[in-house]
């Protein structure tokens, strides 16, 4: 048996170490190990509740706006905020732009280069894949680098800067003028050019007419530009590269719902799916620590009662990532989960045909990106600069608040307890905590671990299959707040 140490895993956002055991060309065991602990929850204790608005986005510079949104929503809830329609729109636009940017970056900068891996050298599509997706030099890679910058410009028009704007309870602090909106729309058209000419080979509207695999087949045959677009290429060659056989996760999906609207609904709904659709009940969320270097309780614990007490011992514990479970089950979060819970017909069809694999996950992300692009344009047009963007909030001294939202890579929750006007407890469960979680109290592996176990490894020096699986989840370890990794040879006690 060979234990392969893949550390450090690159082209993910942040620090992730990963260990797999390979027997007879197959992964038999997997350990996902985060490599960074910064202790945000400890730092927030005793601070003014509004300080969380500035501190928590610094958990992750890749998806800071989801933390902006979660912290603002937690305080909306705790501080009894009222939010005007423009306030909702502004938050949705900022979060939507960031999520679109994340999807672009993931597709082209983080995941795409693997399609130009030497494993596929002999495949007929290789020269074309390499020409487009090779890191830095790939033509599509390069296009995406500049499209990202444009999206950041739109973000800055309303948020001041990216990364790291600040959201506030009660709506949005900005007061854009009509000319800001028209400018944003104009920059957006440049991004749309890239999306339509390079990624899709057709208009956004045309792609969104595809509601089943049969439609997609027709779309491919309809026009050469469709078949030869980046998406067309991926749809055609993905299964040939074996991406439909890799990375089968647990098949449970969770979404907190996102892009809150003035009518009290989310554009993309919340829910849990385990073969059946369930409405989300956040009281069913618990964090386990049996295999994580924490102490203070057994079994699972709801985040509002969460304890973050680091404790290292040599033994069965193997990571400092806590282990979130929904109704006791591991759950995949991210674009595939959101699309399934939204009952998106195309993604449901894909999932039925191919299962929750690398191929489906990547396509679900791209499909969501296209839907989101169309929606951002709508939101921009809906803003009414003559109406208010900010409503109000109060300052009660003893309250609790919950802020649930979605980052590009999945469900993000903030739970805050305020006592005597100060933060008494602040707990964050990041999307990556869900996907990268270790085994729980019942010894059930987390989603990525499950997806990696069983993966065939052709060449132990180039375990690209495993990397496809890990990257398909778009893990963001900068996100995993509770992570630290002392190595076996070190005796550590974290107090």
């Amino acid at each position, binding site marked *: 048996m060979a234990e392969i140490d893949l550390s450090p895993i690159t082209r993910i956002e942040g620090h992730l170490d990963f260990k797999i055991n390979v027997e007879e060309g197959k992964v038999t065991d997997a350990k996902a190990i985060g490599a960074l602990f910064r202790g945000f929850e400890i730092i927030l204790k005793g601070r003014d509740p509004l300080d969380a608005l500035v501190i928590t986005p610094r958990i992750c510079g890749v998806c800071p706006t989801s933390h902006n949104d979660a912290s603002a929503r937690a305080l909306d809830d705790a501080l009894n905020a009222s939010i005007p329609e423009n306030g909702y729109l502004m938050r949705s636009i900022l979060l939507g732009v960031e999520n679109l940017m994340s999807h672009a970056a993931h597709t082209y900068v983080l995941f795409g280069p693997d399609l130009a891996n030497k494993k596929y050298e002999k495949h007929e599509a290789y020269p074309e894949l390499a020409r487009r997706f090779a890191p830095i030099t790939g033509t599509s890679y390069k296009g995406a680098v500049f499209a990202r910058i444009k999206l950041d410009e739109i973000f800055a*028009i309303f948020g001041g800067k990216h990364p790291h704007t600040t959201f506030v309870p009660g709506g949005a602090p900005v*007061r854009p003028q009509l000319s800001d909106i028209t400018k944003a729309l104009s920059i957006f058209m440049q991004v749309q050019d890239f999306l339509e000419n390079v990624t899709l080979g057709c208009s956004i509207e045309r792609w969104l007419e595809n509601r089943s695999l049969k439609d997609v087949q027709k779309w491919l045959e309809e026009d050469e530009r469709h078949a030869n677009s980046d998406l067309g290429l991926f749809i055609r060659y993905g299964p040939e590269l074996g991406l439909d056989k890799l990375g089968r996760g647990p098949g449970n999906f969770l979404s907190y719902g996102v892009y809150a609207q003035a009518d009290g609904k989310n554009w993309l709904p919340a829910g849990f799916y385990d073969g059946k659709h369930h409405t989300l009940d956040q009281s069913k969320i618990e964090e386990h620590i049996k295999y994580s270097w924490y102490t203070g309780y057994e079994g699972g614990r709801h985040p509002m009662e969460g304890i973050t007490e680091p404790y290292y011992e040599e033994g069965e514990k193997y990571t400092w990532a806590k282990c979130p479970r929904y109704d006791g089950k591991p759950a995949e979060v991210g674009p595939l989960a959101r699309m399934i819970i939204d009952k998106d017909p195309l993604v449901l069809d894909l999932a039925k045909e191919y299962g929750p694999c690398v191929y489906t996950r990547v396509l679900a992300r791209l499909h969501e990106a296209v839907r989101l692009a169309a929606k951002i344009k709508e939101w921009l047009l809906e803003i009414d600069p003559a109406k208010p963007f900010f409503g109000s909030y109060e300052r009660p001294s003893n309250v609790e608040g919950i802020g649930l939202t979605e980052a590009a890579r999945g469900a993000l929750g903030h739970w805050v307890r305020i006592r005597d006007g100060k933060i008494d407890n602040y707990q964050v469960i990041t999307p990556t905590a869900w996907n990268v979680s270790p085994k729980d109290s019942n010894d059930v592996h987390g989603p990525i671990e499950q997806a990696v176990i069983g993966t065939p490894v052709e060449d132990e020096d180039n375990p690209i299959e495993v990397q496809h699986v890990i990257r398909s989840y778009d893990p963001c370890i900068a996100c995993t707040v509770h992570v630290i990794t002392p190595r076996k040879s070190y005796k*550590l006690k974290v107090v």
Partner: protein
Amino acid sequence: MVNVVWMQGATDNGCLVSFLNMQQPDVYQAIEKLGVSISYQNTINPTSGKDVIATLEKYIAGEEQLDVLIIEGAIPRGPNGTGMACFIGPKSFAQWISELAPQAHYVLAVGTCAAFGNIPAAEPNPTDATGVQWHKTEMGGFLGKEYRSKAGLPVINISGCPAHPDWVAQTLVAVLLGKNVELDKYNRPKDFFGEEITVHDGCPRNEYYAFKVAAEKFGDKGCLYMNLGCKGPHTHSDCNRRLWNRQSSLTRCGIPCHGCTNPDFPEGSMPFFQRRRLVVEGWKVVPYIIGSGFMKLAKPERLKNE
């Protein structure tokens, strides 16, 4: 060719994300025209695992010249002095930095985390984190006061949460052209962080500030200093002159400056939404207060919060 290694420690990746917005030069011009070769940067690296370790070891052994070492993120020395709160492959981040720094011709600490410690080093500093050559307002940090890179310079600090891509890019270009980059008292390039520059400078709310029209709540038009805790006048950086993403700035969008380039960020700025003191350091209190009274009287009608 200019060999650049970009190491990430206790960071949120924000400074890298910000750097990718670089426009003059853009990433491609930097590579093609300035000959910059990024030998390792985890988020964009083509290879993983062993290859990464081998590249870094080559620089440590001095087999290849390390022209610029960019460090993003604070350096955790904990737990218990092991540095293992953050590691890359077989070594702690701290260990890598202590081995790479002596080989580097220039060291840039990018972002407030690397420059001064930032949030990871905020009390109670759970991982005993510190900046590369500074700990908050004190020189020393991880490498110590005496450290000089091979070019004879201390670590060049480019603070900011995140650092502005232009601050990094222009410093890099200047260094590559062999120019002497003048530094301020925190070893930051004076061009961006000098004594005479503040965030207040260039803020479109200046007129409101001058006539003492204070925003009462978020979304008001007035100045964010009195009631919403703007740190602009206390913060030496050119955000409102240079603008972010070539478009805007926090104060332009109604968000008070949080003072994120300051060495004492975040503690020195908390509570973020409350005024630090009435009068900015260096201002003459009595004339200022008397003057304010007159300015209120002088206020033109058109300056209103709503």
